[in-house]
């Protein structure tokens, strides 16, 4: 009985710790109009053309990042599982590096390597810088993407399924597109939503590469206005939660994706 009370207390403290700032932020974001609650702050955020520009820029970047991430990670994880299982620790270590190396180091490295005086002057044009930023995002999301896909691959018998497809006449592109990808789709999507959340909120890389992304815009508003940053924070939270909800929904929706383990 006593133990139960303490668990409730612990739970309550946790709730207060996580929810109080959130409730405070929401409450504050509604107080732009003096003396009453209103959505004025949200209105002014949505009316700001820079919000729409930076937000759609970041969404586009997120989609490209996901595409590139899937194209890099799925074949790599598949190949490592099938042909080079001994390389797994190495690949896992490499995919963990972005968690250890701060983005600011990565972006400075990019700027030094690809500046206008280099052989590959990517920073010279807007498109080149966009590309650089997207690759940076793909790097940042690598730990999540790789782990998600690898876990998905663990749930199916990759080797035997590949051999079965091969014996039926399929080549590698068909095997990856028709057999492997559909069976790890849930894992890929959960990696994709995490990537989306990371890209939408990322500040350092976008700011230092001077691209009009959502993160730097958030910072700018935060430095100059009172109520709007709170509203933006709530919006950012909503987007993140929406993504998480989608992950849950998708993984529950695809009940048939569970392969029989052998």
């Amino acid at each position, binding site marked *: 009985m006593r133990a139960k009370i303490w668990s409730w207390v612990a739970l309550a403290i946790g709730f207060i710790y996580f929810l109080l700032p959130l409730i405070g932020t929401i409450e504050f974001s509604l107080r732009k109009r003096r003396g009453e609650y209103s959505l004025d702050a949200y209105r002014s955020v949505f009316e700001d053309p820079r919000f729409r520009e930076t937000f759609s820029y970041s969404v586009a970047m997120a989609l490209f990042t996901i595409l590139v991430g899937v194209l890099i990670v799925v074949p790599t994880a598949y190949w490592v599982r099938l042909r080079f299982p001994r390389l797994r620790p190495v690949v896992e270590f490499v995919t963990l590096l972005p968690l250890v190396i701060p983005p600011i180091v990565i972006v400075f490295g990019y700027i030094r390597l690809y500046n206008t005086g280099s052989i590959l002057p990517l920073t010279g044009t807007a498109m080149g810088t966009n590309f650089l930023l997207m690759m940076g995002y793909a790097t940042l999301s690598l730990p999540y993407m790789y782990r998600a896909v690898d876990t998905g691959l663990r749930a*199916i*018998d990759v080797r*035997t*399924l590949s*051999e*079965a*497809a*091969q*014996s*039926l*006449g*399929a*080549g590698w592109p*068909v095997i990856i597109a*028709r*057999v492997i990808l*559909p*069976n790890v789709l849930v894992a890929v999507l959960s990696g994709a939503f995490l990537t989306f959340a990371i890209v939408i909120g990322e500040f350092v890389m976008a700011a230092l590469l001077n691209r009009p992304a959502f993160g730097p815009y958030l910072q700018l508003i935060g430095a100059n206005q009172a109520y709007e940053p709170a509203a933006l924070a709530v919006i950012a939270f909503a987007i993140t939660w929406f993504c998480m909800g989608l992950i849950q929904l998708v993984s529950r929706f695809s009940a*048939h*994706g*569970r*392969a*029989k383990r*052998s």
Partner: protein
Amino acid sequence: MSFLEIEHIDKSFGATRVVKDFNLSIERGEFISLLGPSGCGKTTVLRMVAGFETPSSGSIRIDGREVTNLRPNQRNIGMVFQAYALFPNLTVADNVAFGLRVKGMARSAREARVAEMLRLIGLEGFGERFPFQLSGGQQQRVALARALAIEPAVLLLDEPLSALDAKIRVSLREEIRSIQRRLGITTIFVTHDQEEALSISDRVVVMNAGVADQIGPPFEIYNRPATRFVAEFVGTLNLLQADVLEPTSGRLRLGSAEVTLGRPLPEGRVTVAMRPEVVTLGRAEGNEVVFEGMIDDVHFLGSVIRVEASVAGDRILLDTFNRPNLPPPAPGSRAEFSMRKDDLLIL
């Protein structure tokens, strides 16, 4: 020339030679089993025929075409795996249609072929189900239909029954054999279960440590094993030590009996072997070899009675049919055993 020719293939993984100078010719429509303990190289041979492994040396020809260096998807083989390996995201019908779709077969022809295959394996009406909605035996039948749908030149079965429970194992192996006969498809079946191999094959290849010890029809493999390994691995065997009395005429002493085999034997002691069912309790007409022993134990198995006995220090098993008017001997009593001398195997 045979339909499938495997000539002098060798396979090494690192320093280990798992298949050593393996040769096999298979006729069109033949059902061949590769039988052996785990690690004997039988699966490696099958995987080399399938193209999942490349021989270190030697060649494989299917229907006159050299396939040794072709990729698996260029060989036109159908393969069934122990783990079923159905695509979990596809329905039964789509699984069966997979190979046809890869080939680019038109939709109507594809659907007709899928329906024909599902009828063949007795799973009409299961087309829209997903693999996880089927039992193990049903899944393996779908895997068989999927492999047969592409009309392969050779059907390869890699321990397809090992994951199933005993009853289904027997019924499915009979079903596989009858489908194989009906289609006349050349088939290689890998198993470590000797009963399975003997019961459904035209010929059995008994493999031991990467070498084919004996290749022959089940009757011959069982009754005239070429090596000690084959004799011991296939079926139950009684081993007795015998003293060779006269090497040239093949005269030897077996417990209390003396036998002349009429063929030369090495000097000293030899191991003689006999199947449990060739030994008769008591004397019988035509059984020249008679020896004595002590009954150790009697197992009543219904139609068969299995007797354990000691003969000159060696333990033997013998099987006799149950006869209601003849109760089995009591353990601890002495008894006479007899057999035909032709049934004695010298190993």
